[in-house]
């Protein structure tokens, strides 16, 4: 990847390098030969041949299933699901097969499948193209989920996913697709949560676009704010959060998903159970409202969390 690649270009470079290194890497998806709607796979078919970069009809169940078969046959498939909303049509193959085969086979088989998808509101596309469903994937034992927030981490996440023996969903926030902003720890481990801003009063844990939003809020808020980029949605690792709470003892969780059944509820109950005595104030949780995503600009803007929301939460948690 080159220094000023945006997130999609960096991910494409990682995929290209992996295909050059390992002939077992295959790409499947709708319109991947021409590059797809976000140009993620542009040029790969010309360089690596249409045998390894295959267009599919619109049948998500079938081509995620085909990815599982390729993985069982020793390939390393990279399947592009245009929007995580369309994962509903592939849920049987993803939840019932990809996630379970290692276990159901007594540990003797693995499914090195990578699924790339895009989540999140912000482009006025309405209820079927703007959801954030990472909370679902955290539900299913056997799935790993990475959510890179910078170009370099997108390169590292795609590379790590393609080398991993288990099914990995790389879920990228739509708002970051063409973003170039780097963050501290970009050369670190894509599997581990990272501290992107040190502070002493409040710990803010965020994912996706909200990491950048939290940093913006941290500049405006009076208290000294520490920001942690979760990076790995599943299986969840709360150790770094507990370590941070040793110092700040106040926690704000920021996540782009409806409140009930959300990933943030999991983080909160995990911290509560194992770090209750570290807390000086109740944890604050910022999530999207429990409604479908509206399309109109004014309504969608009201639906989405803003930096001001984070500032308000940080100052409220300081008040105890």
């Amino acid at each position, binding site marked *: 990847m080159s220094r000023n690649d945006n997130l999609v270009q960096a991910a494409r470079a990682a995929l290209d390098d992996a295909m050059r290194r390992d002939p077992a890497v295959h790409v499947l998806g709708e319109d991947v030969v021409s590059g797809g709607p976000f140009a993620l796979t542009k040029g790969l078919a010309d360089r690596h041949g249409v045998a390894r970069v295959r267009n599919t009809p619109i*049948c998500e169940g079938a081509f995620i299933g085909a990815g599982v078969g390729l993985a069982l046959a020793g390939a390393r498939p990279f399947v592009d699901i245009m929007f995580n909303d369309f994962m509903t049509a592939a849920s049987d193959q993803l939840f019932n097969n990809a996630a379970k085969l290692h276990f159901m086979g007594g540990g003797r088989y693995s499914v090195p499948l990578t699924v790339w998808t895009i989540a999140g509101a912000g482009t006025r596309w309405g209820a079927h193209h703007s959801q954030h469903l990472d909370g679902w994937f955290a539900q299913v034992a056997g799935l790993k989920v990475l959510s890179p927030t910078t170009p370099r981490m997108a390169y590292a996440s795609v590379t790590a996913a393609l080398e991993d023996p288990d099914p990995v969903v790389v879920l990228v926030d739509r708002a970051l697709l063409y973003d170039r902003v780097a963050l501290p720890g970009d050369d670190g481990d894509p599997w581990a949560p990272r501290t992107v801003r040190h502070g002493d009063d409040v710990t803010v844990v965020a994912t996706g676009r909200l990491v950048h939003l939290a940093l913006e809020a941290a500049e405006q808020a009076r208290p000294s704010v520490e920001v942690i980029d979760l990076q790995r949605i599943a299986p969840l690792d709360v150790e770094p959060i507990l370590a941070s709470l040793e110092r700040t003892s106040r926690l704000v969780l920021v996540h782009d998903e409806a409140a009930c059944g959300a990933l943030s509820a999991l983080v909160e109950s995990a911290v509560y159970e194992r770090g209750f005595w570290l807390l000086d104030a109740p944890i604050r949780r910022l999530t999207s409202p429990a409604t479908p995503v509206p399309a109109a600009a004014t309504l969608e803007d009201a639906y989405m969390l803003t930096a001001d929301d984070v500032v308000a939460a940080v100052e409220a948690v300081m008040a105890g």
Partner: protein
Amino acid sequence: MTASTWPRLERMLRGRRFDERLIDVRERVTGVFHVGIGQEATAAAIAAVREPDDVLMLNHRSHQHLAANGTDLAPMFAEILGRDLGPLRGRGGTLHLCDADRGVPYTSSMVGGGVPVGLGVALAKRRRGEPGIAICCFGDGALGEGVLHECFNIARLWDLPVLFVCESNSAPAAGQATASQSAGALTDLPQAHRVPASRADATDPSAIDDAVRTAVAAIRGGGGPRFVLAQTAPWPGNATFLPTNPLGRVELSRAERPDHEWDAHDPILNEVRALRRDGADPEALRALDARVAAEVEDALRAALDAPPAPASVAFENVRASA
């Protein structure tokens, strides 16, 4: 829609002029949108046979259907522009346009997602002895989804009053129906489940009109489901991610003096040619076009002037009870 000497042409022009003006203001559209340019004849054919008790399940390419059906154009523009005047007050946008008073309760933009729902409405009507059929519209891409086959099978098994309309703008490829469908022809798919299927050149308004009329008559006569393949030529403006209008506004004069190769496949120009052959006065045709264009202009003006809905609207209609 006022009584018109040429209702079919007016239905098509409403859709065409709407989409052309929408592309003109494309930067004002706050999200993705699709247009139905080139597919207006199928919409007009369906609108002509639709009865008040029928349900119409559309998809993400719905403007030409709603316009042909007589839906008020101002709320349509407003919804696409995210304004309060829209049927969903901006919550749905172009992907979820609806008109409950004209048989479109809601619209799904999941490929094939609305088709089984249409079958369910048909099932309820038949069991409750109520009039009405379901008309399910989808693109040829949807035939890759297994749910379409599940629906062909069940519609035939339970003899449901359903018209499947496949609007295909794809060309056959390598001896297959399309690049992504290995069957010999798209009509083979419903026929494999014993659903009678016909194919019509939907660039010729009278051809697709006959095919739809024949199929709907058989369904209303209790003959069970039917499938009509409406084949059109791909319109160049859809090549880019958001539609543009590379061929410019279609003046009716291009019926005699085509500017582009695609003009031979334009259903509106073909209709004008047919009407001119039957002695239609060109002045009267221009007057009709001008009236429709004025209606579209007023509608666009009203939509652009409409305010965005208050944020509280985003929380309405989520549940029946709190």
